[in-house]
C-alpha cells in the first residue's frame, strides 16, 4: 500500500503545511507555536518510518519511490523525485534533527534574547523562526530527493532565503547581518555559476520535455573540454556549499552569528548538499572530468583537513571553532568521494551522516552552554572555566560530542573516518599520510577546548548555573544514542550506503 503513495512528496508537503499553520497563527497565540512545530516534526518522523518501510533495502543502489510529473515541459523541467540508500539516510538525518532543533529553541535559544523584549514579542519571534525551520525542512527533503537537475537547482537556491532570514533576523551579535549577507552572496554566486553549467548541460542532452532528468543527462557530454567546464561550474557551487578550502570563509562567520539551531541544520544537513551533489551530480554527469580533476580536488581536500584543524585550534569563539572543525571534516568526506573506490565513497557517505549527528550535538550543547554564561549568550571560550563541577551532565555530553569529533572508537564517526583513510591510503599514500594528521589535530582542538571550558578553576559568577534540564537532556539523548548504536552496529546504515557507492563506481568505470 505504501508503494502506491507518493511518500516523498508527502514528506515534503507536511512541514510546509506546518509552516503555513505557524504563520497563520494569530500573534497572541504564539505560545502554542513550539508545540505545533513539534507536532509537525513528530508527524514527519512517523512518515519517515513509513518511508523506510516502503523502501526496498535489498535494492538500495537503485532510486526508489520515484515520482515523475511534467512540470515546465517548455523548458524540459520535470518534478521528479526518488531516493537511493544515501539520499534516504540524508533525508532521515534532516528529519531527525528538526524536532531536536525545535525542542532546543523551545523557550529562549538564540531567539528573542534581545534586551528589553517582552515575553510576548519573544514568543512571536519564536513562532516565525519555527515557521522558517519548517519551510527549510521541506526544501531539505526536496533537494535530497530531486532527480531532475532543474528542480535540484531551483531548490538549491530557494532554500537560501529561509536560512538567510534565520541568520539575519534571529541570529546573535552585531554582525549577524554581515554574516547573513556573506552567506547569501557566497551561496548565490555559487548558484549562478552552477546555473551557467545547467544551461550548458541541457543543450548537450536530449533536450525535449524531459531534458533535465538526471537519468537523461548521465555522461552525455561528448566534448571533453566542455565537460571539464561544466564539471567546474557544478563543482564550485558544491565546494562553496560543502565548504572546502579556499571558498570556506563564509562558514565561520555564519556559524558564529547564527542561532545554534540554525547552525545545526546549516552545517549538519545543508552543507551535505555540497558533498551529496558531488556524488550524485558531478560523478555520474561528468565522469571523465571528475577523474581529470581528482588530483587537484584531493590536494584541496587535504589542505581543508589540515588548515581547518589548525585554524580550529586557534579560535577564541566556540562556534567558529566548531565551524572550522567542520571544514576539516568536509575535507575527509570529499577525499573519500574522489578516491573513486567503493570503500571510500561508502566511508564518505557514512561520514556525512555521522558528521551531521556529531556536529549537530556539538552545536546544540554549545548553545546550552552559552545560556549559562554571564550575559546569557557569550560564545568566547575564555569566559568559561571549571564548568565540569558546575554542570557535570553538560560537560559529559560535550565530552562525548568532542570524542565523536575526534573519531573515538566505539562512536560511529570512528568507522567512517577509518574507512575513508584506508581507502585514501590505497588510492594515494601521500594523500593518506597528510590526511591522517587531521586525526591528531582533531584530538588537539577537542581536548584543549574541553580543558579550557570545563576543567581548571571555577569562574565565580558561573558557579550557580543549573545543569541541563529535562528538556535539554531530551534534545541530546537521541543523538548520543544514535552515535553509539551506529558505532557498534554500523551495518544498519552501511546496508543502505554500500549499494549506492558501488553504483557510483560502476558509472565511473563504465565511462572510461
Amino acid at each position, binding site marked *: 500500500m505504501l508503494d502506491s503513495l507518493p511518500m516523498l512528496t508527502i514528506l515534503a508537503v507536511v512541514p510546509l503545511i506546518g509552516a503555513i499553520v505557524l504563520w497563520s497563527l494569530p500573534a497572541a497565540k504564539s505560545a502554542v507555536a513550539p508545540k505545533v512545530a513539534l507536532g509537525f516534526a513528530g508527524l514527519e518522523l512517523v512518515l519517515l518510518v513509513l518511508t523506510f518501510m516502503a523502501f526496498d533495502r535489498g535494492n538500495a543502489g537503485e532510486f526508489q519511490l520515484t515520482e515523475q510529473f511534467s*512540470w*515546465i*515541459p*517548455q523548458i524540459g523541467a520535470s518534478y521528479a523525485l526518488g531516493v537511493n540508500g544515501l539520499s534516504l539516510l540524508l533525508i532521515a538525518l534532516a528529519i531527525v534533527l528538526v524536532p531536536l532543533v525545535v525542542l532546543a529553541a523551545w523557550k529562549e535559544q538564540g531567539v528573542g534574547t534581545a534586551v528589553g523584549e517582552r515575553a510576548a514579542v519573544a514568543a512571536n519571534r519564536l513562532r516565525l523562526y519555527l515557521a522558517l525551520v519548517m519551510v527549510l525542512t521541506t526544501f531539505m527533503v526536496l533537494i535530497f530527493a530531486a532527480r531532475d537537475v532543474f528542480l535540484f537547482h531551483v531548490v538549491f537556491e*530557494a532554500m537560501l532565503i529561509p536560512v538567510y532570514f534565520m541568520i539575519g533576523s534571529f541570529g546573535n551579535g552585531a554582525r549577524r*547581518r554581515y554574516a547573513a549577507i556573506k552567506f547569501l552572496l557566497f551561496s548565490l554566486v555559487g548558484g*549562478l555559476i552552477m546555473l*551557467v553549467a545547467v*544551461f550548458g548541460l541541457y543543450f548537450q542532452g536530449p533536450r525535449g520535455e524531459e531534458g533535465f532528468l538526471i537519468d537523461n543527462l548521465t555522461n552525455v557530454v561528448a566534448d571533453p573540454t566542455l565537460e571539464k567546464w561544466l564539471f567546474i561550474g557544478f563543482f564550485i557551487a558544491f565546494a562553496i556549499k560543502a565548504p572546502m578550502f579556499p571558498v570556506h570563509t563564509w562558514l565561520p562567520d555564519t556559524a558564529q552569528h547564527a542561532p545554534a539551531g540554525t547552525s545545526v541544520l546549516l552545517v549538519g544537513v545543508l552543507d551535505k548538499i555540497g558533498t551529496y551533489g558531488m556524488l550524485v551530480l558531478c560523478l555520474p554527469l561528468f565522469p571523465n572530468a571528475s577523474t581529470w580533476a581528482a588530483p587537484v580536488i584531493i590536494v584541496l581536500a587535504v589542505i581543508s583537513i589540515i588548515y581547518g584543524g589548525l585554524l580550529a585550534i586557534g579560535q577564541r569563539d566556540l562556534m567558529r571553532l566548531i565551524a572550522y572543525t567542520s571544514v576539516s571534516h568536509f575535507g575527509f568526506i570529499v577525499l573519500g568521494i574522489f578516491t573513486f573506490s567503493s570503500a571510500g565513497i561508502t566511508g564518505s557517505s557514512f561520514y556525512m551522516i555521522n558528521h551531521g549527528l556529531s556536529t549537530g550535538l556539538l552545536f546544540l550543547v554549545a548553545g546550552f552552554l552559552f545560556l549559562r554564561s554571564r550575559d546569557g549568550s557569550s560564545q568566547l571560550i575564555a569566559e568559561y572555566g571549571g564548568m565540569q563541577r558546575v554542570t557535570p551532565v553538560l560537560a559529559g555530553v560535550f565530552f562525548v560530542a568532542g570524542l565523536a569529533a575526534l573519531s573515538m572508537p566505539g562512536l560511529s564517526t570512528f568507522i567512517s573516518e577509518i574507512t575513508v583513510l584506508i581507502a585514501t591510503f590505497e588510492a594515494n599514500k601521500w594523500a593518506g599520510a597528510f590526511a591522517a594528521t587531521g586525526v591528531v589535530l582533531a584530538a588537539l582542538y577537542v581536548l584543549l577546548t574541553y580543558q579550557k571550558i570545563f576543567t581548571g578553576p571555577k569562574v565565580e559568577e558561573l558557579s550557580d548555573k543549573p545543569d541541563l534540564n529535562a528538556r535539554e537532556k531530551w534534545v541530546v539523548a537521541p543523538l548520543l544514542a544514535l552515535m553509539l548504536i551506529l558505532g557498534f552496529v554500523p551495518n544498519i546504515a552501511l546496508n543502505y550506503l554500500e549499494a549506492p557507492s558501488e553504483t557510483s563506481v560502476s558509472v565511473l568505470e563504465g565511462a572510461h
Partner: protein
Amino acid sequence: MITQLLTEFQAPTISWTYLLPIIILAGSGILSVLIEALVRDSVRRPIQISLMIGAQVAAFISLIWLGVKSFGPNGSGTVLPVNQALHFDAWTVGIQAVLLICSLLATLVLIDRTSAKQDPFVATAAAVPGSEYEELARQRGLQQTEVFPLVLFAITGMMVFPAAGDLVTMFVALEVLSLPLYVLTAMARRRRLLSQEAAFKYFVLGSFASALFLFGSALLYGYAGTVNLYGIAQVAQAHGQSGQIPQFGLMLILGGFLLLAGILFKIGAAPFQAWTPDVYQGAPTPITGFMAACTKIAAVGVLLRVLNYVVLLAPVDTQRALIGGLWVVAILTMIVGTVAGLTQTDIKRMLAYSSIGHAGFIIVALMGLNASTLSAVVFYLLAYGVATVGAFGIVTLVREVSEGGEVLGEATHIGQWAGLGKRSPFIAGAFSLFLLSFAGLPLTAGFIAKYTAFSSVVATGVSGMGVFNPVPLVIVAIVASAISLFFYIRVIVLMYFVAPAEERALTGELAQAGPNLADPAEDGDEPSSTSPEAVRTSVVLLDSAPHVEVVKSEGPTLAVIVVAAAFVVIAGIYPTPILGVLTSLFGG
C-alpha cells in the same frame, strides 16, 4: 498633377474588426475629454474611473477574442488591418495583451486615494508651484481629472506602437504615447518643482529622441523610397543579393541606428537612459509604475519588430552593424543599471536603475531571434511589468507623516523603509517578493523569466544561427544579475534587520554622526559595535526625520499588490499554463 495623384491614390482596405481594441481605447480617450469638459465636478471622477477601467477591460476582451480567432485552433493567421500600416500578428497580440494587463494594474494604483483621501496628482496642474492660486485651489479641495484621458491616450499610443508596420504610423504612435506622459510626469501633488523639472527633462530629451527617430525615418525613406518596414527591408535585401555595394548603403545603416536610438530611448537603455532616474523619481508614483511597465513593453515590441526585419532581410554588413550596436547597448545597459543601482539611496531611483538593468536583460533576450525568443520575451515582460507595477504600488503607500498626523508625500529615502518588516509585515513581504523576482531568484516569476529568456539565447548560440554567437552576452547578463542581487537584498536587509528610526530613539540610542545619518544600530547590538565605516556608508536616517507610516489603501492598490504578489509566486512555481499559451501563440 493633383488629378494624377488622386487616381494613383488607393483607399486602404481597412478590416475594422481587427482595430477593435485600439478603437475602443482611442474612442474612450476622446469620450473622456468630453466628459472632462461637460460633466459636473461632483460626479466626474467616478465616471472617468469607470470609463477608463471599462475601456481597458473591453479592449482586453476584444483582443483575446481576436487573438483566439486568428491564432487559436484553425486560426486565420496574420492580418494587416490597414494595408501594411498595422500588423495584427501573434507578436502584436502577445505584446498588447501584456500591455493591457499591466496598464490595468497600473491604473488601479492610480485611482487609489488611500486613507489620506488625496490622489497623487496636483489639484490644478496649471498653477505655479507655491503661488497663492495653488494654495487657494488646495483649500477649495479642487480636483481635476484630466489624468484619465491622458492615460487613455498614452495606452492607445502604446497599443499602436508595437503593431505599426510603417515608420509614419510608428512615429505618430510614439508621439501619442509620449506627449501625455510628459504632462503626467509634471502632475505630482507633492514636490512639484521636482516633478516639473522631471517633466521638462523628459520632454526635452524625449523630443530629441523623437527627432532622432524622425531623422532615421527620413534617411530610410531616402534609401528605400518607402516608409513601409517591409518595403525598406525588401529594397535592402535586393541590394544585398545583387552583391554590389549599394549606393546609399550607409544611409541604411545610419538610418537604422537613428531609428533604434529613438526606440532605445523609450526602453531606457544606455546610453539613452539618463532621463530615467530623474523622471521616475519626479513623476507621481502611480505614473512611474505605469511608465516603467507599459512604455517599456510597447518599446520592446517595436524593437523586436524592427530587429525582425533586419535579421530576415537586411544585408549581412547591415546586420553586423546594427546587431553589434545592440550588443554594445545591451552590455552598457546592464552595467549602468546594476552598478549605478548599487549606490542609490532613493527607492524610486533604485527601481529606475533596476528597470534599466532589466532593459539590458530584455535586449539580451531579444538576441535569441528564434521562435522561443518571442514567448520568452513576452513572459519576461509580463513578469517584469506586473512586479514593477506592484512595487511602485507599494511605494505609494509608504508615506511620511507630519507632527500633526497629516499624511504627507511618499517616504522614498531607503532609510525610511528601515524596520518596515516589523510594522507592516504584509507590505514588506510583498515588496521583498517583488525584489527577489527582479533579482531572479528561484520560485519567483523573475527566475523563470530570466531562465527561459537566456536559455532561448543559448539555444541560438548552440545552433549557430545569427551573425554573432550570443552566448557571451548571456554570461555578462548572469554576472550582472549576480551584482544586482546586492542592491535588492540591501533593501530587504533594511526592512527586516534594521530597527526604524523612532524605535531606536525610544531605546535611547542616539545618533553620533553626520547631519542626517545615524549609526545603523539595531536591537541586540552592543553600542560600541558600529564601525566608523558602517556609519559612513549608512543609509539609516536620524530620528529627527519625519515619521513614516504605511497608509491604508482604499482597495485598488491593495488588490494590485495581492494580485501581483500571487502572480510572482504562482508563475514562479508553475508557469506552465502561461508558457503553454505563449508557445501555442508563437508556435515555438
